[in-house]
């Protein structure tokens, strides 16, 4: 039973993380494309509880940033005015989950913009870009994995069920895809498709490209499951009652593939998200101004950014809790599958 509990905990973590991303509008104080040309490359706002006179305040506050000329540290805090951090504020309008018009934000402030993760060259709030960018990257991962799982199921089931020459050809084809370094393939394929496209098109391109390249491993696994399930006595028995191929597949063989497919999905989603990040990072993926985790990191390729604006690195860490949760779910699923196999 603890295996189930383990799986449940990881799933809860995963759902919570995705929930935050899904409700990006609520958790971010501003939109992802709103520019603030007065504050390019602002460092993360420091939250204080102690003011300049040594008084403690329960509500955290921060100071507005003023540009300083001529110093390497561009901004200084304007300590003349405390700007308290307010929670559950009314801010700019957005659509919750892309559908419900809303204007409530988790936190915000009057008079000045708070940059919890700093701002980029156009003064856009990095926190907002991370949250909204997560929507793009995670969605790309999910859709791509959906395509891959579907292809893997169809091809693997066909190979396993029909056997013979169909199996041979399909598996040789799969080996080809498995043998190649995936990133090179991804790049190669991306290379030959139009480069300068709209964000939506680019997004779809990435999804389709990564989805169609990764089918080989799921297909092989599904094939293995189908091959062994086909030979099981209970399948034979069902055939002995006069069951059709379609019935056998639907009722007996397909359920056996579910655990393999779920585990594969849990393993592949982070990989696909990473693929999107890599492509976008190099300018081959989702273009500006749409934020994705990948293109948020793109300007880290500039030496000056690395040198002076360290907070631009922070978005990379956003993916780590996601990776962790997905791996947790995948290994819990794996353990559960092994465990139930022994029991039966």
């Amino acid at each position, binding site marked *: 039973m603890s295996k189930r509990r383990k799986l449940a905990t990881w799933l809860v973590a995963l759902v919570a993380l995705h929930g935050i991303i899904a409700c990006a509008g609520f958790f971010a104080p501003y939109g992802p494309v709103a520019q603030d040309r007065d504050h390019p490359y602002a460092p993360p706002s420091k939250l204080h509880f102690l003011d300049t006179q040594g008084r403690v305040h329960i509500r955290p506050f921060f100071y507005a940033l003023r540009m300083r000329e001529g110093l390497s540290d561009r901004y200084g805090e304007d300590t003349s005015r405390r700007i308290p951090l307010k929670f559950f504020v009314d801010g700019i309008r957005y659509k919750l989950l892309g559908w419900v018009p809303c204007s409530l934000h988790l936190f915000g402030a009057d008079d000045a913009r708070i940059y919890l993760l700093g701002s980029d060259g156009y003064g856009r709030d990095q926190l907002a870009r991370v949250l909204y960018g997560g929507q793009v990257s995670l969605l790309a991962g999910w859709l791509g994995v959906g395509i891959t799982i579907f292809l893997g199921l169809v091809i693997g089931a066909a190979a396993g069920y029909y056997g013979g020459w169909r199996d041979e050809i399909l598996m040789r084809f799969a080996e080809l895809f498995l043998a190649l370094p995936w990133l090179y393939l991804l790049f190669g394929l991306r290379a030959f498709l139009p480069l300068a496209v709209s964000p939506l098109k680019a997004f779809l391109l990435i999804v389709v490209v990564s989805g169609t390249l990764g089918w080989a491993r799921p297909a092989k696994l599904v094939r293995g499951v189908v091959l062994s399930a086909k030979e099981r006595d209970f399948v034979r028995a069902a055939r002995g009652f006069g069951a059709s191929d379609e019935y056998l597949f639907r009722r007996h063989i397909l359920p056996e593939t579910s655990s393999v497919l779920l585990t594969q999905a849990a393993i592949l989603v982070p990989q696909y998200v990473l693929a999107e990040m890599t492509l976008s990072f190099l300018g081959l993926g989702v273009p500006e101004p749409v934020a994705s985790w990948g293109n948020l990191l793109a300007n880290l390729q500039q030496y000056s950014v690395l040198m002076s604006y360290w907070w631009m690195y922070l978005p990379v860490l956003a993916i780590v809790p996601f990776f962790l949760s997905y791996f947790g779910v995948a290994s819990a699923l794996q353990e559960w599958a092994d465990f139930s196999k022994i*029991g039966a």
Partner: protein
Amino acid sequence: MQPLIQVEHLVKCYSGRNVPGDGEVGPALNDVSFSVAPGRTLALVGESGSGKSTLALCLAGLERPTSGRINFGGHDIVALDEKQLRAVRPQIQLVFQDPVSSLNPRFTALEILTEPLIVQRRGGRNERRERALTLLECVGLSREMADRGTGELSGGQRQRLAIARALSLAPKVLILDEALSALDCSVQAQIANLLMELQSSFALTYLFITHDLVMAAHLSDEIAVMDRGRVVEQGVPEKVLRAPEHEATRRLMAAVPGSNVTPRLPRAL
């Protein structure tokens, strides 16, 4: 009496892969002929590799013989196509050796029992449920077990369930492919008794496949010994055990512990 099943010159060659049992080169069934009278039990005894599993599969319509005839109910099963075969299938059912692998672990007992009825499209949901519960009682299980998964059942209970499933379509013939071999000794006796009861209750014909010569002698009216795809000796149990003619029979006798035990009295006809 007209035999219920008549097998004539059955030959089965495998092409290399997917060979059940010990998979040797050469035909699995090499000109097998025998017949079974209705209501009787014929035991097919042989070592592994002798072709008995292949024979079971051919008789149940799960493998196509390379040549030969299987006469049942006026038809030659071998010559039927899949559609015609579907009408015949309910009448010959198979009980497998391993009750763990022959029952889908994801199904409940009820689902297992109603599956044949669903596949053959007999009756509505309630009728199927009733029939399943009745079957449970027939094999000595309680009606409450219907919604349990197979993981909660013991080996003996599982095999009872498998037998109940085989009976769901009211077959005329039950092929028991080593159906007792995977069970503990004490359970074997119980299930064997159950089978005997069922045979008289439902006027079933049994084809009892085993490697245990003594068990065969105890349960059957006639024994046919198989060796390397052929029937090498046939006769009533007493004769086969007391005066084995073929070397294969002698080997089987030697394999059974305490094989100098004389068989019981013949069962009443």
